[in-house]
């Protein structure tokens, strides 16, 4: 049960994703980073089929690099979102990528922005959005508590409300989350939430 959500605040955009990599009933990893930094000022949060998630987000990241390398300037966030949509749409009727995404970025001229990208290549610019089963709970919380131009503290409070709601009301909810922010200073990790990792085992139990 993966969760991905994000919203735009005052001069920044936030993307939150769970960090659990599951295979059927087994939790394989609790520190899986599902939000890729496409370049210095863009984030791509990606959930869905694990292979497609990793491959597709890396593919988009490398293409962002290639454009920057060839042309000397990075793509704007809306252009990056449009490029990603086209890749998804081209693959849709051949071998679809089963990934749902939220792309956030900061452009000098237009400020922060957030894009919702479906697995069937539906693209929409939004101020607040969510993917996955968590969306059923998070969108209602956004309708009630989201305001335009929140600062980072208020934004983190809203994120904590969402995480608490998912933990309380969603079956098989993930425990750990990563929160990344993008603003004029760039894209970076802001915070983590959830159960802390246990201390390293000292001895080999088989000895």
């Amino acid at each position: 049960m993966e969760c991905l959500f994000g919203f735009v605040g005052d001069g920044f955009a936030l993307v939150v994703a769970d960090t659990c990599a599951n295979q059927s009933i087994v939790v394989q990893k609790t520190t899986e980073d599902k939000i890729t930094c496409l370049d210095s000022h863009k984030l791509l949060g990606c959930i869905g089929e694990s292979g497609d998630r990793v491959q597709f987000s890396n593919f988009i990241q490398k293409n962002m690099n290639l454009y920057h390398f060839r042309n000397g300037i990075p793509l704007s966030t809306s252009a990056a979102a449009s490029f990603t949509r086209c890749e998804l749409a081209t693959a849709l009727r051949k071998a679809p990528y089963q990934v749902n995404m939220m792309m956030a970025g900061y452009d000098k001229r237009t400020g922060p922005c957030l894009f919702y990208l479906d697995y069937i290549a539906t693209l929409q610019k939004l101020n607040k959005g969510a993917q996955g089963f968590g969306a059923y709970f998070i969108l209602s919380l956004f309708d009630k508590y989201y305001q335009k131009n929140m600062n980072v503290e208020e934004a983190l409070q809203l994120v904590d409300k969402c995480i608490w709601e998912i933990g309380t009301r969603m079956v098989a909810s993930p425990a750990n989350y990563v929160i990344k922010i993008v603003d004029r200073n760039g894209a970076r990790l802001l915070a983590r939430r959830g159960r802390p990792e246990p201390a390293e085992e000292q001895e080999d139990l088989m000895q």
Partner: protein
Amino acid sequence: MSITSYNGSALIAMVGKNCFAIASDRRLGVNFQTIACDFQRIFKIHDKLYIGLSGLATDVQTMHQRLQFRHKLYQLREERNMRPETFASLVSAILYEKRFGPYFCEPIIAGLNDDGTPFICTTDLIGAKQLAKDFVVSGTASESLYGACESMYKPDLGPDELFEVISQALLASVDRDCISGWGGIVHVVTPDQVITKTLKGRMD
């Protein structure tokens, strides 16, 4: 759920006296969940030609990109804009190319000819063109839209009256369809200007 009702849509185009109006709802949904209330379904091809695309949102966006590309290429080669009839034939051809794996969208084309007479037509998802003299509708709310337009429409309306009629028809119809609505947008196009207005209806 049917693929054409995955995202939800409602579109109308109506003919007036030397003008036309094209209107759509603004909801983008995924089945019963609403994602956005400002989704664009009506696209300007040139000053006197608009296309509205209903159906699956991803195909709406793909069709818009393909048509914009083809029209820009046409402009470069012919050094003029496409006439509405020509554009309608282009849309029909592009849709029929994918006859056995179609784009799940049903366009409405509305334009003004060079002499100022309005032109509207619609096609189905595989490009069967249907011209009309009064109004065309498309989308998940199409049955309601047909009824509302048939009863409210009068020929030779001026731009203001046409705006009123098309808005009332749209809002009345989307209120009876749970997956379209959340407001509306109307473009009224006359030979000298384009008036765009957004409608606020029942936001549910």
